């Protein structure tokens, strides 16, 4: 069987055509098959359900674009939420101190990841696998093993509030997507991220400080994970130290479906949003059709492999 797709355009687009087509086809299929899929309310539901994974996936997009890997996203998510809980509830500090503390904790642990990867030269897989465990342990220790309830109203607003009828997490996801899309495509920070992932030697010989850049990337990744943790805790009104287990895998899945090269050099934040939405729509549509959750896992895994396969087919053809 031969699949005919248009040749890859020489000018790399912001979003890969495949992921957009998959999103469109999937939405059409769900609109026909799933009762109640086509409504603004349901669409906002999908975006809301996508927000936490979407924010994590933005972090994964930057790290994967640099040919790195961050397996600690889910654990740093829990750390971010729990630190906000301890500062805001147990210690009764103002909400903005709690928020800043939670984000700082994520940036700090991300910085530890980055330092060990860039300066000590330990593979990212090992370092962030270690942090996956260390971060989870720390969040359990900080929270004494149980969820912290009763977060300040200003924090829960971030997860449950609405602005112009649209849930606040959706605003946050969409604005972060826009900002980080611009950072990746328009700034030196974004360009160096891609170049380091493409050919680290090219970055080195043109005077780019590769180690410093990698440390900043993992700090960014940790900070975004902590922010996702705040959104998650705010939405369920509890800072749970067991939150976000295996979320890093969903984030990486969304990123790769969206067209970011798992081995670095090519990344797209808008594509990542589409990848996350594809996963959200699958879940939502299958739920509406009352198909058991086990099938959803099969479907999402299949879409991941299919997306990468389509990409390969286009890459293998003569330029």
């Amino acid at each position, binding site marked *: 069987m031969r699949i005919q797709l248009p040749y890859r355009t*020489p*000018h790399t687009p912001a979003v890969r055509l495949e992921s957009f087509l998959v999103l469109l086809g999937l939405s059409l299929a769900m609109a026909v098959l799933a009762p109640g899929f086509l409504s603004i309310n349901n669409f906002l539901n999908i975006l809301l359900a996508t927000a936490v994974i979407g924010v994590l996936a933005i972090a994964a997009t930057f790290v994967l674009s640099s040919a790195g890997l961050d397996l600690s996203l889910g654990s740093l998510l829990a750390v971010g939420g729990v630190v906000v809980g301890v500062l805001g509830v147990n210690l009764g500090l103002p909400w903005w101190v709690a928020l800043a503390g939670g984000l700082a904790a994520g940036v700090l642990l991300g910085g530890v990841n980055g330092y060990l990867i860039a300066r000590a030269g330990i593979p990212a897989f090992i370092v962030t696998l270690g942090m996956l465990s260390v971060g989870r342990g720390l969040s359990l220790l900080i929270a004494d093993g149980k969820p912290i309830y009763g977060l300040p109203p200003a924090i829960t607003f971030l997860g449950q509030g609405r602005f112009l009828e649209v849930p606040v997490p959706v605003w946050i996801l969409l604005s972060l997507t826009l900002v980080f899309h611009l950072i990746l495509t328009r*700034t030196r920070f974004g*360009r160096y991220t*891609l170049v380091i992932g*493409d050919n680290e030697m*090219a970055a*080195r*010989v043109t*005077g780019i400080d590769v180690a410093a850049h990698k440390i900043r990337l993992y700090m960014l990744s940790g900070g975004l994970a902590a922010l996702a943790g705040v959104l998650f805790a705010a939405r369920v009104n509890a800072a749970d130290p067991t939150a976000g287990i295996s979320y890093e895998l969903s984030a990486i899945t969304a990123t790769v479906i969206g067209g970011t090269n798992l081995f670095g050099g090519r990344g797209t934040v808008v594509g990542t949003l589409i990848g996350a939405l594809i996963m959200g729509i699958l879940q939502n549509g299958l739920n509406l059709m009352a198909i058991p959750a086990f099938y959803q896992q099969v479907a999402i895994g299949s879409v991941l492999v299919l997306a990468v396969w389509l990409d390969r087919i286009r890459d293998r053809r003569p330029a």
Partner: protein
Amino acid sequence: MIQGRGWDVSLLEIRNLTKRFGAVEVLRGVNLTLEAGSVVGLLGDNGAGKSTLMKIVSGVYSPDGGEVWFAGKPLAYPQHNPREARRLGIAMIYQDLALARQQDVASNIFLGQEPLCRWLGLWPVIDQARMQREAEQVIERLGARIPSVRHPVGQLSGGQQQSVAIARALTSSPKLFIMDEPTAALAVREVEHVLELIRELKRQGIGVILISHRLPDVFAVCDRIVVLRQGVVVADLPAAQTNMSEVVGYIVGAH
């Protein structure tokens, strides 16, 4: 000779340079001088230390011992790095070209020195329009045929990729131009193009070091030929006073 402070100094002077990687002694006291406007061919068998020597000059590696003087001043190792080398006027084209293959031609040419403008007067962003315009000018000056500066470099031919690497090196207006195997992967017509470029650089008073295995290319453009063997200079001869078989003898150690 170029004008130093009051007396004439060489453009590049390498004194007793040593470098080891673990147990391997790659350079064992190398001496080499280069005058502005002259072309030196640096020859030697694989592993003789040619690329390592040049990567020390271009700031990728630091030496273990010895000194490198450039335009009358010592390079300050280990702070010396590729950015500093470029600022001083040392440009190098690497054997594997050191290109980011998924990025476009313009990005590769301006890698590490992208022109910036301020978005809404606040945030520094890459001035894409200016970068592409200037990249087109550089490519045109080189006379290279490249479909578009927005083409990913990995989709270009070997000769076109070579042109991109040369264009990148030329943007820093170098005084010293180091080329590591620039003709190894090129078609005949493209080789002639590179040799003509070397002659043009020489006419402009730029010093050139050419690393190559292709002796006809070396004899076609070089004033002097330096042979490295097992980390030391075994021959330093004017090109006019030697021939290929003598040079081959030095390379393989028959002399």
